[in-house]
């Protein structure tokens, strides 16, 4: 528990820097935000002057940041220039969609990587190992958006097994959700799966050469027990680290994959805002996506600590 608190405290400075970065990003945009807020190029000088006051644009830089951060903490990220709706409300609708995609992709990655990684680690250079090495080289070289296009082409256009795009909420119909999420999850999860698989294999190969594994054999351990319990438990720590590093790729990749499959998550929201230069929305999306990454990485870190007694139990 103390460990969880420590990790949470360590995140605070990172959060400050991230929020500052997000704030700064928009401040550096060329052009006058007051003009945009007042309705673009056709705005009257009076409206622009009013917008300047409303937006506190004449305050000092840091007091603007302070105000923005204060509002953000209270759940106010401003209004969309386009739709005039609250950015936070829009984000709240879209976060679960993106999270469900990331979770599905992670599940796919783990379910594929664990058996293949373990079999490869048990028999280095065996058939499974050779096969999964080819698979992972391909998976790392083929960008997820290209894979997404190929999946649509094959499974939606040619075979017609699954819909090429769209989304249904998990809460509305889990079966429908699954139908829509399978291809995006595969597209997003394959590269993660490859990295995880290689790491698991390497860790297991190393692990099975250790002295404590020799001890486990020496007391008469069965293959299942030595490899499956002692080997795998110790090999899972580095694999979890890799999963943590892959979170960033998952969150970023989700943006592209959502766009291709027309999934109404944060990614499509952000891309729409980019084409319309809708700054508050872009700002909100970047902030939330960064938060998603920070929280997921934190979750991975804590999981790592929980299964690793050296971190969990102090000497």
């Amino acid at each position: 528990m103390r460990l969880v608190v420590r990790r949470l405290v360590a995140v605070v400075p990172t959060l400050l820097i991230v929020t500052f970065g997000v704030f700064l990003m928009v401040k550096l945009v060329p052009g006058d935000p007051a003009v945009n807020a007042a309705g673009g190029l056709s705005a009257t000088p009076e409206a622009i002057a009013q917008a300047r006051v409303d937006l506190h644009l004449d305050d000092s830089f840091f007091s603007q940041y302070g105000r923005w951060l204060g509002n953000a903490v209270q759940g106010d990220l401003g209004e969309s220039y386009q739709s005039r709706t609250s950015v936070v409300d829009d984000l709240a609708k879209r976060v679960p969609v993106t999270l469900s995609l990331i979770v599905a992709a992670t599940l796919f990655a783990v379910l594929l990587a664990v058996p293949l990684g373990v079999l490869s680690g048990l028999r280095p250079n065996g058939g499974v190992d050779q096969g999964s090495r080819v698979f992972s080289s391909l998976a790392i070289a083929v960008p997820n958006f290209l894979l997404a296009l190929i999946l649509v082409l094959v499974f939606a256009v040619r075979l017609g097994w699954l819909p090429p795009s769209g989304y249904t909420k998990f809460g509305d119909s889990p079966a429908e959700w699954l139908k829509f999420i399978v291809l995006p999850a595969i597209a997003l999860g394959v590269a993660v799966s490859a990295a995880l698989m290689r790491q698991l294999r390497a860790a297991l190969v190393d692990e099975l050469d250790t002295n404590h594994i020799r001890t486990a054999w020496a007391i008469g351990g069965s293959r299942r027990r030595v490899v499956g319990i002692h080997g795998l438990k110790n090999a899972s720590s580095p694999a979890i680290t890799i999963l943590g590093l892959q979170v960033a790729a998952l969150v970023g990749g989700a943006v592209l994959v959502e766009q291709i499959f027309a999934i109404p998550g944060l990614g499509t929201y952000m891309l729409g805002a980019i084409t319309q230069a809708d700054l508050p929305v872009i700002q909100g999306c970047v902030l939330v996506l960064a938060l998603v990454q920070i929280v997921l990485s934190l979750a991975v870190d804590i999981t790592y600590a929980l299964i690793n007694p050296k971190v969990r139990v102090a000497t």
Partner: protein
Amino acid sequence: MDELLAHHAENIPITPDEAVEAAAEFAALPRRRGAFLRLLRRPGPAVAFGYLVVIALAAIFAPVIAPYDPNQIDVPSRFAPPSWDHLLGADDLGRDLFSRLLYGARVSLTVSVAVIVIATVVALVVGLVAGYSGGAVDNVIMRVADGGLSFPPLVLALAVAGILGPGVVNVIAALSIVFVFGLTRLVRGTALVVREEPFVEASRAAGSRTRRILVHRVFPNIRSPLIIAATFGIAGVLLAEAGLSYLGLGPRPPAASWGNMLRNAYDRGLYKASWQLFVPGLAIAFTIYAFNVLGDGLRDVLGVGRSRRAKRRERRGMTTVERVRTPPAAPTSDDALLRIEDLSVEFVSERGASRVVEGVSLAIRPGETVGLVGESGSGKTVTSLSVMRLVPSPPGRIVSGAIRFEGRNLLDLDFEAMREVRGTGISMVFQDPMTSLDPSFTIGSQLAEAQRLHRKVSRSAARARSIELLDLVGIPAPETRLRQYPHQLSGGLRQRVVIAMALANEPRLLIADEPTTALDVTVQAQILDLLKRLQRELGMAILFVTHDLGVIADLCDRVAVMYAGQIVEEAAVEELFAHPRHPYTAGLLGAMPQVGGAGERLTVIPGQVPMAHAMPGGCRFADRCAFVTDACRSGRIDLVATGAAAVRCVRAGELTLQGAR
């Protein structure tokens, strides 16, 4: 704050100017091109490099090579399949895909190289300033880098490029920002490590100027990791650039990039000409793959991190037996508990097989303690591991002999039958207690496992027995220890736990392979006393493997001395210590420090143990022996038994050697 300043003052701060100047000076230094040649000697990286050269040339000479203007619209050729007119076909507006691919390569490569160059230079300067200055500067820079790394890279790039608007320059700016954080961290980490190294400390003490240290000490160490990171980084930039262009943030249409070609093929041609996806798609995938292969190759060649080459296919947990000669027949009646006969073990490597144990025979009676002594590399550990069939295969394999335990030849057993012997008939205690226990499980669960592997025991019975075992090996407060993990115990305690695990099923033979070598001297004595007491109380036989004759004198009934894979002498302990018959044994005794033997000079055996793949034909000790004659080098020398003792020396009858003093 004062503390922070004081810490800072100890370091030599460097300015960005200095870092840049030093980098330029370093870049101008002549250096060997060996690594690059070695890289190209490997087939994978060589092909990848060749491919990238072709792509780069195609991009540079695109205006010359391209058969069409990449933006020339030709409606009749709409969705034309590949032909001599259009090598890779034409898109929805009839534009030539081959020409567009060439021009797209310009965009991809320009962006990739520009981003990596910008990000690397910035990272080098900022990272060096941070890592080398330390203190508050370092703190601020690293906090910012951490913050930057908290953004998903693609999201950050999208936001920056989206805010700046489409265009190649904006993409370069956006991606440079994204990639600089990770590289900065890498440079800073390496600089920090190098800074702490003794040679840099020494040059600082010697008054070397900051710039000299940077050029001659720090950069050479940063270079390899940075080159590797940059190579993988190019693949990452390429991927991100394709993603951004796919989303319409790359070069403005109609200019071609691989990413927007892909988008166009998907949006316009998915149902009519889906093959078009593969034109830019394969170009992107191959190029990324080539950079990754090159990066892997560089990592191997430059020797950063471990080579990722796979080990050979392994058969886990059991030494293979591939006999080259028939095993000796079983004796009709045998009073020995364990009888090793004519055991030979080979290690197979790329250079061929080397025999590390050659024709070893050794018997142990019930309750007897036998010492097996030799230098490292003498084959004593391999011999003892062979008894448990625990020599890893490959590279190890048993090529001859028999190991009879209670009449059964262990070399004929399959895994399941051998598993039954391990831990119940024969147990083993290893050299390094720090790593012999599984770090992820409690002492209690490992002790319980040792019992449950061989018989059905209830949880509470296993616990009671575990407490009893910890008590037996002299660990106080056993109940507390059961709940602890190995890392919470000292080395001595861990070795006691390992011994307790070995004793869990009351084995008839305990093999102890240098069980005290890794421990402090006082702890060594305690563990030896423990083994002596256990032997007395439990009446089991012990095979004690060690390089330390002093330990043997204290513990054993009989000793076998091994040298270069062979047993050279075997005798009762008192006999061997008083009247050694092999010059090697006498040498070992002479090298043994004696308590109270002040004034006596220790002698050292000159020379080294011959390598296993280059064994001399006659006596293997001949090159180091003071008594060597021609006869020693001619032909095989056998172990000759006289009564209970045996010696492998042609001059054994005539020499009178000095025993222990």
